[in-house]
Structure formats: structure tokens, C-alpha cells
């Protein structure tokens, strides 16, 4: 049988590291049912026993004020684990003990993991683990999760507790009148087991238990108690818990020498300075961006080369026809389309993991909070939006780091407006064809429109769907620490795996479908008379015109009349759904030039004849804002579900249309 272990603790105390130490690579992530809170679970075996481990979200208490706390509360109520591991930060023990007090009262076998004892020692703290264990009534294990120290002892303790299960031996002392009330409720409930009964009684007094009812006499005595002490009962209970935590802390923690030089505060003087801190933040963001895209770029090229050579190899093996086309153009290309995002994603999460672990992320959120709030966003929104300038796919994945659903959604919904690098070839083509005199200015104006649209839409969406966000910032800034290398790598690996599994399958399927729609129905050129042989370019042109996609393009042409986009342009835009760079190559094929890219002079000449400068500009605006590519849609579905993804598709198209129309109107008026 598999035993269930749950790990609970405050944020920033090394919980994830401990989880990694226990489960190694055998982990998986998903979401807790019904909410957008991440759920991490894993497994391991030890001493011929099998264990399943659940990493509960980091919380400060189980009072259900935030969605994470609700998740933890629900979990302990509905599916209590066989063993509860409470991990605490030894350098800040007193505060952590409050949560410990709450956990003890859940009444399951529990182990306290005293983590970061090396740092505690450095600050001159001496913690009497034995006394701590006696006063808390549970076993205590000292660990340094970062270096995997103490894991063996922990495992031994877990096994011991499984073989001889015992509940926490401590009862938190409430004032004696309160104890009387607790006792009388407990008796009237008739629940088996003193601890369970007490737990239920406390739940009722705290107002959390609505199913069980108390009799009028007890309700009366509660009111009397509250009047006498001039305090609601729930405050009395929490006050006692604090007293307990304080008392334990006072008895078990001794400061053996004066506190060491407070490095964290000294660094914070610079990193959180309103001006200086912002500059440093900018530098870190620039470095991140460089890391992800400048290093990722060559790797991506290698992958593309690899995919191409595999495609070539397979093409030479398979006979021409449906199967070869399906495998080479559809499947292998589709796979390539997925793999090509992998380097960026891995590098991005490597960087994010590093920044989080060192504690810098919190400072970044602090320093940008002001600016971001003015934009209707949040401090941590900065990273996804910045990354979005390179590629929106990892940017959407990066929104995981935000705290509330509203922040995640709003940020994710406006990040696609940050012009990604795949759209650059489209701008390059049109700008050099029509605006060769003011290239820089026009390019800049496009990026600017993107940013402004993002800000405006962030405000509108935020207000429309979530109402006025009045939750003020309340965030802990953990002390600066060296990152745990293993943790960072594990995070990177898990995210990459998740991307491949979930988004990957969607992209692959969609690529095959899009291949089909572009290549069928197959135009038959064999019936042409000998004198009218078509060039390969002309064949491609005819093929695309007669395909399902082409027919669709012609079908929606009237809708684009106001923008002066003919069916050829519409087709280009449609194929841009697969990947934005494809817009250029599609236009090349449609205009009969065969394989081209944005540098082709032929293509530029033809386009100059086909459309006007104003149309070209509004086309670029449209490309900037409309439906993000397949990759983005896939990760969006994975992160936020179908409902919000359909909204994304719908509203980006509408916004693109409207703004492009506006641009056209202004263009026609002035130019």
C-alpha cells in the first residue's frame, strides 16, 4: 500500500527543495481541482515502503483568506495524509511556529523539519531541537535542504512513524474558561477520539464548521465568554496559539552571540531603492532576455537544421505521395514546430528559477509595483511581458509566477500585444518596401502601439472581469540566499517536460491539420497540355489558391473589405495563425514567387503594386495585434482552459481589426 505524505510550510523556507530531495525526478505537476493553483506530487520508495508525496502550496496559515490557504484547508479536511511534514525556517522560527500550532491541531502524525539550520547558526541562533520536540509533542529533524543534509534522518523518522503511528502529544492550552467551553462542545458532539472531537469543537468555535450544530446552551455560554473578555472567541483562540508559539520559541531559541552583519538589509538598500533599484532591475531583465534569446537562438537553429535533415532523410526513404507528404510536411514539420520553442522555455525557467531562489524576485515585484499598478498590472507581470518581446510562448508560461488568478490572466491576455520576434520579418518586408525613408520611426511606432494597446486592454479587462482590485500588496521579502542548484534545474526540467507533453501534442495535431488544409484538395497539373507547363512556383501558387485554406480566404474576403485586404492578404494572415513568420512565405507563394523570404526584392516590388502604403501600415498593425500563433494558443489552453482561450482568440482579432481600421482612418486623413 502507498502511504501519503503531505509537506506544509510557509513560503520561502525550502519546501520545494525538500520535496525534490525526497522525490528526485519522480514528480508531476498539475492543478488543484477547480483552481489555478499548481499541485506538485511525487513518489519514492524507502525500506520497502512506497510513498506518495504532495507538496502543498506555501501558506502562512489555514485561515482561508487566500486561494492557496483554501486549498490547504480543503486538503487537510477531506483527505488528511498519513504523515504531515511541517517544514520551518530555523532563522525565523517564532513566526513559523504559529502555523505549526494550527497544524498540530489537525491531529495527524506529524514531523517538524527544522530547515536552514546552517543559516541559523551563522546568525548566532542556538535551537534546542530536543526541547522543541518535547514541547511540540512531535519528532523534530534538523536539515539543510539545499545540501541534502538530514534527508536520511528524515526518512528514518518517517519509517518509524509509519510503523508506530502516534499523534502529536501536545495540547495547546487555551484559557480555562475557553477550555470548559471546548470540552462541553466536544462532549455534545459525540465524536470518536479526543483529538478529533477537540478539533471539531475548535472548528465550530472558529466559525469554520457549518455542518455540525451546537445547542442553545453552548451558544449561550460562548456569548457570555465573549462579553466577559470583550473579545470574539476566534480572537481568543488565535491569541492562545500565538502565546503557545511564543512560549515555545522563548524556551527553545537562544541567541548565543550578537546578530551577525545583516547582509540582506544592506543589499536591499540598493536593490529596493526607487531609482537605483529600478536600474538594477532593468539590468537583470536585460541579462535574462539575452540569456533566453541570444543563447537560445543558435540552439533553435540547430534544432531546425536537425529537423530539416531528418525530414530530408525520411523523404528520400518514403515514396512520393500522400504518406510521404503527411509524414514529412505534416508530422515532422509539426514536431519541429514544437521542439523549436524548447530552448527558450528551458533557458527562461532556468533564469526565473535562479531569480526566485536567490530571493530577488520579491524585490523586483516591489520595485516595479508602482509602475505596473499604473498600467493595471502587477510587479511580477514585468517578466512575462518582457519575454513576450522575444517569444510569447514562454512568456505565457512565465505568468505562472504571479500570485492571483486575475494577475495571471490579465497579464497573459495582454502579453501577446508585445510584438514578438516572429512578427519582425513581416515588418521588415513592408517597411523596407513602403517606408524606406523612415524605417526606424515606423518600426518604433508599431512596437509602441503594441505596448499602449496592452496597457489599455489591461485596464479594461481587469475592470470588466474582475472589478476594482483592492487587495493591497502584502508580500514577504525572503533573505538573500544562494540558489539551490538542483532545485533550479528540476524546475527547468519539469516545465520543459510539461510543455512538451501538453502544449506539444496540441501543436502537433494542429500542424498536421493545417498541413492538410493547405495541401488539399490537390490541384491536378497532369492534364495541362504540353505547351502550358507551369513552373514550380506557379504550381505552388495554384495549389494554395485551390486548397481549403485558400477557399476559406476567398470566403472571408468581404469581411476585410474595409481594411482593403484582398483574399491573398487574408490567406497570408490565416496561415500566420500557425506561426507568424509564415505570413511572409505564404505571401511569396500566393504572388507566384515560390519560396521567398522578407529580403526578396521581387516580393517587395509585387507588394508595392498590390497594396497602398496606408494599407501596408494597417496590415502591420493587424499582424501585431491579431490572434497569437498556435504555440501561444496551445499553452494558453493548458494554463487557462478553453473558455479563456476562445476569448483570447476572439478579442485579439476584434482589437486588431478596430485598431487597424483606426490606423487606416488616420492614415487616409493625413497621408
Amino acid at each position, binding site marked *: 500500500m502507498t502511504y501519503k505524505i503531505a509537506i506544509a510550510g510557509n513560503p520561502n523556507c525550502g519546501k520545494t527543495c525538500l520535496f525534490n530531495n525526497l522525490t528526485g525526478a519522480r514528480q508531476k505537476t498539475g492543478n488543484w481541482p477547480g483552481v489555478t493553483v499548481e499541485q506538485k506530487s511525487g513518489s519514492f520508495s524507502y525500506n520497502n515502503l512506497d510513498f506518495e508525496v504532495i507538496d502543498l502550496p506555501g501558506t502562512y496559515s489555514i485561515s482561508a483568506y487566500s486561494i492557496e490557504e483554501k486549498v490547504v484547508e480543503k486538503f487537510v479536511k477531506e483527505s488528511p495524509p498519513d504523515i504531515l511534514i511541517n517544514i520551518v525556517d530555523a532563522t525565523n522560527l517564532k*513566526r513559523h511556529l504559529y502555523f505549526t500550532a494550527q497544524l498540530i491541531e489537525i491531529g495527524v502524525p506529524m514531523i517538524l523539519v527544522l530547515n536552514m539550520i546552517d543559516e541559523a547558526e551563522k546568525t548566532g541562533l542556538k535551537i534546542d531541537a530536543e526541547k522543541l520536540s518535547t514541547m511540540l509533542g512531535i519528532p523534530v529533524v534538523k536539515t539543510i535542504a539545499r545540501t541534502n543534509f538530514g534527508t536520511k534522518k528524515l526518512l528514518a523518522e518517517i519509517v518509524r512513524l509509519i510503523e508506530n503511528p502516534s499523534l502529536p502529544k501536545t495540547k495547546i492550552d487555551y484559557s480555562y474558561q475557553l477550555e470548559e467551553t471546548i470540552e462541553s462542545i466536544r462532549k455534545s458532539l459525540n465524536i470518536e477520539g479526543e483529538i478529533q472531537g477537540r478539533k471539531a469543537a475548535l472548528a465550530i468555535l472558529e466559525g469554520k464548521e457549518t455542518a455540525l450544530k451546537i445547542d442553545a446552551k453552548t451558544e449561550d455560554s460562548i456569548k457570555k465568554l465573549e462579553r466577559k473578555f470583550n473579545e470574539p472567541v476566534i480572537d481568543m483562540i488565535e491569541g492562545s496559539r500565538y502565546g503557545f508559539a511564543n512560549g515555545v520559541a522563548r524556551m527553545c531559541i537562544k541567541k548565543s552571540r550578537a546578530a551577525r552583519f545583516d547582509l540582506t538589509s544592506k543589499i536591499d538598500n540598493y536593490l*529596493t531603492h526607487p531609482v537605483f533599484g529600478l536600474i538594477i532591475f532593468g539590468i537583470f531583465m536585460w541579462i535574462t532576455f539575452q540569456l533566453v534569446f541570444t543563447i537560445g537562438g543558435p540552439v533553435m537553429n540547430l534544432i531546425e537544421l536537425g529537423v530539416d535533415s531528418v525530414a530530408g532523410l525520411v523523404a528520400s526513404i518514403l515514396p512520393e505521395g500522400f504518406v510521404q507528404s503527411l509524414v514529412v510536411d505534416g508530422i515532422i514539420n509539426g514536431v519541429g514546430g514544437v521542439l523549436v520553442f524548447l530552448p527558450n522555455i528551458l533557458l527562461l525557467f532556468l533564469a526565473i528559477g535562479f531569480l526566485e531562489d536567490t530571493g530577488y524576485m520579491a524585490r523586483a515585484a516591489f520595485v516595479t*509595483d508602482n509602475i505596473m499598478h499604473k498600467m493595471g498590472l502587477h510587479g511580477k507581470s514585468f517578466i512575462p511581458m518582457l519575454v513576450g518581446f522575444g517569444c510569447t510562448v514562454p512568456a505565457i508560461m512565465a505568468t505562472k509566477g504571479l500570485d492571483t488568478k486575475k494577475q495571471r490572466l490579465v497579464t497573459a491576455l495582454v502579453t501577446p500585444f508585445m510584438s514578438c520576434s516572429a512578427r519582425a520579418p513581416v515588418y521588415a518586408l513592408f517597411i523596407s518596401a513602403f517606408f524606406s525613408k523612415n524605417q526606424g520611426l515606423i518600426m518604433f511606432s508599431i512596437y509602441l502601439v503594441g505596448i499602449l494597446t496592452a496597457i489599455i486592454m489591461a485596464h479594461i479587462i481587469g475592470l470588466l472581469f474582475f472589478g476594482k482590485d483592492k487587495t*493591497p*500588496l*502584502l508580500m*514577504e521579502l525572503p533573505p538573500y540566499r544562494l540558489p539551490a542548484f538542483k532545485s533550479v534545474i528540476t524546475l527547468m526540467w519539469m516545465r520543459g517536460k510539461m510543455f512538451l507533453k501538453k502544449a506539444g501534442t496540441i501543436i502537433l495535431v494542429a500542424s498536421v491539420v493545417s498541413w492538410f488544409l493547405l495541401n488539399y484538395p490537390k490541384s491536378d497539373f497532369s492534364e495541362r497540355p504540353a505547351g502550358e507547363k507551369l513552373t514550380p512556383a506557379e504550381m505552388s501558387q495554384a495549389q494554395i489558391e485551390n486548397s481549403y485554406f485558400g477557399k476559406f480566404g476567398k470566403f472571408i474576403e468581404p469581411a476585410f473589405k474595409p481594411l482593403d485586404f484582398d483574399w491573398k492578404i487574408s490567406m497570408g494572415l490565416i496561415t500566420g495563425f500557425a506561426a507568424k513568420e509564415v505570413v511572409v512565405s505564404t505571401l511569396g507563394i500566393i504572388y507566384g514567387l515560390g519560396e521567398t523570404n522578407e529580403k526578396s526584392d521581387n516580393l517587395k516590388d509585387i507588394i508595392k503594386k498590390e497594396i497602398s502604403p496606408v494599407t501596408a501600415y494597417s496590415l502591420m498593425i493587424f499582424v501585431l495585434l491579431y490572434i497569437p500563433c498556435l504555440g501561444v494558443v496551445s499553452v494558453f489552453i493548458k494554463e487557462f482552459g478553453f473558455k479563456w482561450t476562445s476569448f483570447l482568440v476572439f478579442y485579439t482579432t476584434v482589437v486588431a481589426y478596430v485598431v487597424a481600421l483606426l490606423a487606416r482612418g488616420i492614415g487616409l486623413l493625413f497621408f
Partner: protein
Amino acid sequence: MKLEDLTDTQQNYLETVYFLSEKYHGFAQLVDIAKKLNVKSPSAIEVIGRLKDMGLLEQPRRDKIILTEMGLELAKQLADKHNTILDFFVNVLRVPRALAEEDACKVEHALGHLTFSRLCDFLEHLDSESIEKDNTVPLTMMNRGEKGQLKRIIGGKGKANRLAAMGIHEGEFIEILQNKRGAPIMIKSGESRIAIGRGLATQIHVLLKE
């Protein structure tokens, strides 16, 4: 002659002469006036001449400038204004003294008679009521490095509980690590460093430790 009849510059000169007279046996010297006001002697001579014409200053000797009775009257009014405003900035708004001095110098000329008298009324009212009773200040009005004990959190229970779970509850000692205009406040409570948005911080009342 009323204060309002004088320009800002003239008021500044009057105030300076008053200040220097108090310090140095009842008169002020030209060079000292010029130095204090950061101007060149010729400019100072011109303004002083004007004030002499208005009957506010006398110059019995070249390097001895004194206030006339009327001048003294006006100067006292000015000093009074300055001190009241300074008092308001330092003790009520908790602006650090150096900055408060600078701003008081700028503001004192701008306040008209009515506004000023209302300010005085307000300060009197304050003195007699809440400040004496409680002596707590909201977190937003504390300065970097100041420490205090948390006395009260106003607003819903939810807020208080969230704060409490993070270690910020009544009785705990708090130190201000950073309080810059418009930005969230950073505090240290025990070993925890916590950033609190201004809207929430203003509802946390602290008793300052001297």
C-alpha cells in the same frame, strides 16, 4: 503695513534680519545678511534700501542694520508663521526636520491670513484631542530606521489575520526599513521582512519607541 504688502524677497530679508538680531546682540551686518540669503552685497543693499524706505529697517551705521518697531512687529509675525508651519510639518506630518525647514520657508509666504489662522485652529484642536490620548502613528508616517510597537490594526478582521499570520500582530515590534513616497512600505518584524502596500499600511497604527 501688513505682511501681505511685502514681496517674498522682502519678507525673507526681514526674517533674516530678525534672526541675526536675535543671535548677535540686536543688530545684523550686511555681509551676514547677504551670506545667509545667498546673494551678492549689491543686491542686498538694494532690498535693504527699499525696506528702509518703507520704514521697516534702520541703518544708523554702515554695518549695523536694525529693525524698526514696525519691522519687528512684522518679523515676529513671520517667525510665528514659520514656526507654526514647521511644527505642523514635523510633529503632525512627521516630515524629517531638515526637509520640513526647507518647505516651511517656501510655504510661509504663500499662506494667506485666513488659511493660516485655520491652520492654527486645527493644531490647537489636535493638541487637545487624539495625539495626547494615543500617540500612535500610522505606518505610512514613520521614517526609515524608526521602531515601534504595533498597537492597532483598523479595518476588517481579514486584514488583521493575514498580517498576523505573517508575524505582524499587536504587541510585535516593527522597524521601518523603507518608506518612500508612492512605494509600498518595507518593514522588519522579528526576522521577517515584509512589503506592505500604502493603503494597508495606513491602517496599521504603531506606538513609537523613543
